[in-house]
């Protein structure tokens, strides 16, 4: 790069609004195509092509090939991102728009006890979901975190650690229905066939959660810098105390996030709960007291076996789905607050 051949005049760039203008042109082209009566997918493709055609030759003419290539890559990445979030947005939109119908006070204050047709609520399902998921979390977090501590801090590379690690991987791949069947079989051995308990669902869900918690915690322990452990050892702090007081607090935010992911993964499980906790129309908060409803199973049953007329059943199913979504969101928010409060402090 010799200084003499390089002047500002040779290196013009497009105005900052250029990509937006091109995007606008793309949207306009897509809308026109829609008006002309083509399918939605085709219209989107037309819009994308129009954006490229509007921006790239323009950039090539003004800025040269290096920047044009950069813009092409940026467009591709943006397109891929849009493609990835489109289903998510569509899903959110569908759940909210259909669920909002029955998203009223009665939904939270009433159960389905004695309800036929319109009315009723999902209080019993909310209680069930919270109790079952809560119990599953209570069981899997200590087991998962302690397993991860063993794997990363004590067992490193040993034969037992390798074996455990292998089985954790296998557990990750268990289909949820198999976890449900396992829990059912286990409890059927004790209580006889046909048993349905909330705690069975919790056992099934914790089977699904444990490997996720183990893997994410292990990952978080791995990023705790080794020199922090050494600093503690150098002060004459025993290993277990170092783990409890230095390593775990440092990894805390990440571990909480991992636990949240695990909860989000199982809170919407339907199949294993269908066979372990069953379905019931009234509130039951006792995990050892027989059948227990939960939101996912509730939505499934309302949708698959509606009464006549169908509409109130379908509306309840969507409202239950919306509630489930909100529960996951609230849990995520709480987790963020918790890890911001207790995690690694900056400044």
């Amino acid at each position: 790069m010799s200084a003499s051949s390089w002047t500002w005049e040779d290196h013009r760039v497009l105005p900052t609004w250029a990509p937006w203008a091109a995007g606008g042109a793309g949207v306009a082209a897509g809308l026109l195509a829609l008006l002309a009566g083509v399918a939605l997918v085709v219209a989107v493709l037309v819009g994308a092509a129009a954006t490229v055609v509007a921006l790239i030759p323009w950039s090539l003419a003004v800025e040269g090939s290096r920047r044009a290539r950069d813009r092409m890559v940026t467009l591709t990445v943006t397109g891929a991102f849009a493609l990835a979030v489109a289903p998510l947005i569509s899903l959110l939109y569908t759940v909210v728009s259909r669920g909002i119908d029955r998203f009223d006070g009665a939904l939270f204050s009433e159960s389905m006890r004695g309800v036929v047709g319109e009315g009723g609520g999902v209080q019993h399902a909310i209680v069930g979901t919270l109790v079952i998921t809560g119990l599953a979390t209570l069981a899997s977090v200590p087991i998962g975190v302690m397993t991860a501590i063993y794997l990363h801090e004590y067992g490193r590379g040993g034969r037992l650690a390798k074996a455990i690690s292998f089985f954790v991987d296998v557990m990750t791949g268990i289909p949820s229905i198999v976890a449900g069947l396992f829990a059912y079989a286990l409890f059927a051995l004790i209580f006889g066939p046909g048993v349905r308990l909330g705690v069975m669902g919790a056992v099934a869900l914790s089977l699904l959660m444990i490997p996720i918690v183990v893997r994410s915690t292990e990952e978080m322990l791995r990023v705790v810098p080794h020199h922090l452990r050494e600093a503690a050892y150098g002060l004459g702090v025993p290993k277990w105390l170092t783990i409890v007081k230095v390593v775990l607090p440092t990894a805390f935010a990440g571990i909480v996030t991992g636990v949240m992911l695990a909860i989000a993964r199982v809170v919407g499980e339907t199949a294993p709960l269908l066979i372990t906790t069953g379905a019931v129309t009234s509130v039951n908060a006792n995990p050892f007291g027989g059948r227990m409803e939960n939101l996912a199973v509730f939505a499934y049953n309302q949708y698959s076996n509606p009464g006549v007329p169908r509409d109130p059943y379908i509306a309840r199913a969507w409202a239950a789905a919306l509630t489930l979504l909100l529960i996951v969101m609230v849990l995520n928010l709480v987790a963020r607050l918790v890890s911001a409060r207790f995690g690694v402090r900056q400044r």
Partner: protein
Amino acid sequence: MSQPSADVRDANATDAPLQAPLGDAATSAPAEAPANVAKSIEARDLDIYYGGFHAVAGVSMTIRPNKVTALIGSSGCGKSTFLRSLNRMHELVKGAYVDGKVELDGRDIYAAGTDPVAVRRQIGMVFQQPNPFPTMSIYDNVAAGLRLNRRKIKKPELDEVVERALRGAHLWTEVKDRLDKPGSGLSGGQQQRLCIARATAVEPDVLLMDEPCSALDPIATVAIESLIAELKERFTIVIVTHNMQQAARASDYTAFFNIERSGDPGRLVEIDETQTIFSTPASPATEAYISGRFG
């Protein structure tokens, strides 16, 4: 960061009366000599291994109490390895072990039945990279060693120990108004002084420092060096450094390590008073190293 010298004076002025009573308060060791007489270390025929790799061979040296001993030598000759074997940090590496003796005032720290954790309480360590605990405040960082080791400690007593350690590390005036802020919010030099305060708060007998200034600017380096000169009143200090001037300025004794051919274990070439090493070393290899002809 232009205040270190002012800071030093301030710390000295206020520190002196505090020093006397705290010595045995913070050491859990039984009745022994006054706090300002530290312990000596004697290494005898020490061989250090990483699994099958023989890293350091046949080191015998005496590290004198209340003196600063500098370890110098080219990269990879085993200075850090030797240093870490002095408080049994070495064995934290998988497969690593030593052969030979390291005696702290005549007691072998590698003797069967000796708890490495107890050894490390008496022989503290400061690392190359400042490593304050990120989840803890400045106060908690300094208090960490005591809190984690001794179950019961009263708040006023702890306050006193923390203040004394921070004054001793010339950090008190800079942080006294933000003791509850995280330690990771300090500058690199402040963080290193915080780590020194943390290490001294547990009142060890010996302080091992592995290139404590290599991540610091010249001014912070000078601050730490003057700190070291003061700390030797209370501790025996062993410091690894790549900086010849630093070894010359800050140490009383200098040990030169060398490695003859790559693959060979590192060996101690000689140890003597720093003045002697830098003026009339016994070995030509030392002469070559300190005059910068290799390494």
